[in-house]
């Protein structure tokens, strides 16, 4: 059938099983919005308050469902407002397709009103991007974008469509949803070598990240852990990958990771790393990182092998299929001495648990835990609250922790939580801070409009806590521009947006407020006070190693 470019865009999205798109209209994308109007019974559109929020929502949708998130924006500022959202998705390998309008082809390059070179701008933060010059290419470009976004190591893809291409017509032939590239295991010889290394280990440690969740290789990893009697740690992106209370799980690694997890990894003689990239937040000083260990690294992206950290065995391949091929070659191991050492690390960690009365970061998150169901997605923003959430939240199922790991985007949470709620249909949670929430709180309007059941826990300490923590430790307590103490009344703010809100002052109130928040069918702010000089601990100082770990702050 003959359709306009705009109709082809929407029809192809529907054909690719896209049920919902996030976005914001504007001059050069009007035709696409007209098609959305036409096809509204087949595809939902969530109107954000700002394109950045729409991009984070598409991201949160993708993180919580594993499907490709789609965001639509107009040219110029609409497109540039997506940039932070696209970069966030890029650094965390999240499948996303962004569609932007642009000025008519004949105007391109003339600095027309709201013209911007968005393919140029997003070159380093997309897996690939397209400028569509012919309406005949449109459908296949979108299909190709879905394939690229979801294949191998996922990531964002942008398609820029000039207005005249949206208007032009051509034949549209429906196709079936595109299939991602077929995953392949690593080379057999590499798997054999890695197996020998693992079999020789006396102190094996398993370290996984977001790549394990993408591959769905949790079962294989747990089987390996049982077989070789190894403890398990993860990166921030790996959180919720396996149940938090799994007996072998020691928690997150790295700068603010769990003591036992970080100590375990640094004392291991063999680290089996699955779908990770040895980010500097995990390794600290790379010269001193895991010096006594041989590292086996399995990742679908071959460029990650020995990129940040030289590994003994780099296996390029799908984590699940590679693990399946690896498991039969692994001997059963029994490392009671090693486990005893791990238990000691655990004991030491437990001795540092925050047992103070009243509202503390730990008690606040633990109170929240009691209200979480196994399917509740929890989004965060970025800063101290994010680390407290990462350390103490209890997860039972994968894809429930929605957090900006690589880019560390303050303001990510509101959009992401809306996206996660839309994708899962579950009553969702945002854990945020007063600083981060202030960045993109406009999306509260979106949450109200679409009656998004969302509990927003604001850990309000009146300061930019994480930056303040660094200023305390490394800048002689020069609190330069980190004291907010704004007069914002979050309860009134919630009401002004048409949401609900309450502030609490003690743990019992927090518990009851959360009860009410989870019973409410819409966004509900719970403002919880946090002392401004709380620290995120433990902490590996920047450039430090495990020998420099800070577990307690001396007065």
């Amino acid at each position, binding site marked *: 059938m003959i359709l306009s470019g705009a109709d082809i865009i929407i029809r192809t999205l529907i054909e690719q099983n896209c049920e919902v798109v996030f976005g914001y209209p504007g001059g050069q994308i009007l035709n696409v919005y007209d098609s959305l109007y036409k096809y509204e019974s087949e595809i939902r559109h969530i109107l954000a308050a700002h394109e950045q929020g729409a991009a984070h929502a598409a991201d949160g949708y993708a993180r919580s469902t594993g499907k490709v998130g789609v965001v639509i924006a107009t040219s110029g500022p609409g497109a540039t407002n997506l940039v932070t959202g696209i970069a966030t998705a890029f650094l965390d390998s999240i499948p996303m397709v962004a569609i932007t309008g642009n000025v008519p082809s004949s105007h391109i390059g003339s600095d027309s009103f709201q013209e911007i070179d968005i*393919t*140029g701008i997003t*070159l*380093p933060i997309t*897996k*690939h991007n397209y*400028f569509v010059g012919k309406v005949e290419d449109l459908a296949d470009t979108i299909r190709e974008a879905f394939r*690229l976004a979801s294949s191998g190591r996922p990531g964002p893809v942008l398609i820029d469509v000039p207005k005249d291409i949206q208007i032009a017509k051509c034949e549209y032939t429906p196709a079936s949803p595109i299939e991602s590239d077929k995953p392949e295991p690593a080379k057999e010889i590499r798997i054999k070598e890695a197996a020998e290394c693992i079999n020789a280990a006396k102190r094996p440690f398993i370290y996984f990240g977001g790549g394990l969740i993408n591959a769905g290789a949790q079962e294989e990893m747990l089987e390996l852990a049982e077989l070789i009697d190894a403890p398990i740690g993860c990166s921030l992106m790996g959180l919720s990958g396996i149940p938090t209370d799994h007996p072998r799980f020691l928690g997150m690694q790295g700068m603010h990771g769990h003591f036992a997890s970080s100590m375990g990894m640094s004392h291991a003689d063999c680290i089996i790393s699955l779908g990770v990239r040895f980010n500097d937040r995990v390794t600290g000083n790379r010269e001193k990182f895991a010096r006594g260990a041989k590292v086996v690294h399995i990742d679908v*992206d*071959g*460029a990650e*092998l*020995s*990129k940040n950290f*030289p590994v003994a065995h780099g296996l390029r391949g799908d984590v699940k299929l590679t693990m399946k091929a690896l498991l039969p070659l692994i001997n059963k191991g029994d490392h009671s001495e090693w486990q005893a050492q791990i238990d000691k690390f655990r004991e030491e960690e437990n001795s540092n648990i925050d047992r103070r009365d009243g509202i503390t970061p730990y008690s606040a998150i633990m109170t929240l835990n009691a209200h979480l169901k196994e399917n509740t997605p929890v989004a965060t923003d970025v800063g101290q609250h994010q680390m407290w959430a990462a350390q103490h939240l209890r997860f039972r199922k994968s894809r429930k922790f929605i957090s900006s790991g690589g880019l560390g985007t303050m303001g990510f949470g509101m959009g992401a939580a809306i996206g996660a709620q839309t994708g899962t249909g579950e009553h969702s949670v945002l854990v945020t801070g007063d600083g981060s929430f202030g960045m993109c709180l406009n999306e509260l309007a979106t949450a109200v409009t679409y009656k998004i059941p969302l509990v927003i826990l604001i850990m309000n300490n009146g300061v930019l806590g994480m930056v303040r923590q660094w200023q305390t430790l490394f800048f002689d307590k020069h609190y330069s521009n980190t004291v907010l103490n704004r007069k914002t009344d979050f309860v009134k703010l919630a009401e002004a947006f048409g949401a609900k809100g309450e502030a609490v002052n003690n743990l019992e109130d927090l518990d009851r407020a959360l009860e009410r928040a989870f019973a409410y069918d819409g966004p509900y702010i719970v403002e919880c006070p946090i002392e401004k000089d709380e620290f995120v601990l433990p902490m590996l100082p920047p450039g430090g190693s495990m020998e420099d770990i800070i577990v307690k702050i001396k007065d």
Partner: protein
Amino acid sequence: MQRYTVAVLVKNQFGVLNRVTSMFRRRQFNISALTVSETESPDFSRITVLFDGEHSNKEQLIDQLYKLPDVCSIKELNSDESINRELLLIKMQNSPETRSEIRDAADAFDAKTVDYNRDAIVIQLTGDSRRIDDFINLMRDYTILEICRTGIVSLERGETTLRSELNI
């Protein structure tokens, strides 16, 4: 630090060079020369990259190149098994005192004089980069007015091609 020559077959599409160089820039690869040319097929362009770095940097460069969807095939070309050529145009000041020495040097290198007038001589030289460097160094004894070199082009000896690995 070592010098590597990497040949890359890419889709002949608008903006491909930009994608490749954008990746080099953002990951701070030390590229000393880069040439782009049409190939025997209108579907592909060929990029030849001259790159200085450690072995691990070279591996990383190739791995990162493979991640670009427009990149079809990559081959590291080592000097023993490939033919590397570069073209130099060098404009020398023409003066009665140095004229004959410059021409002698050019003859010794089998270089061609492609333009000659009262004030300047333009010499053309083809060869591998080392040979070009040697000639330029020799010319530094006189007055060089301008230099332009193409950067390296490189083909493997024998019948294998970058495309043969793609089966197209």
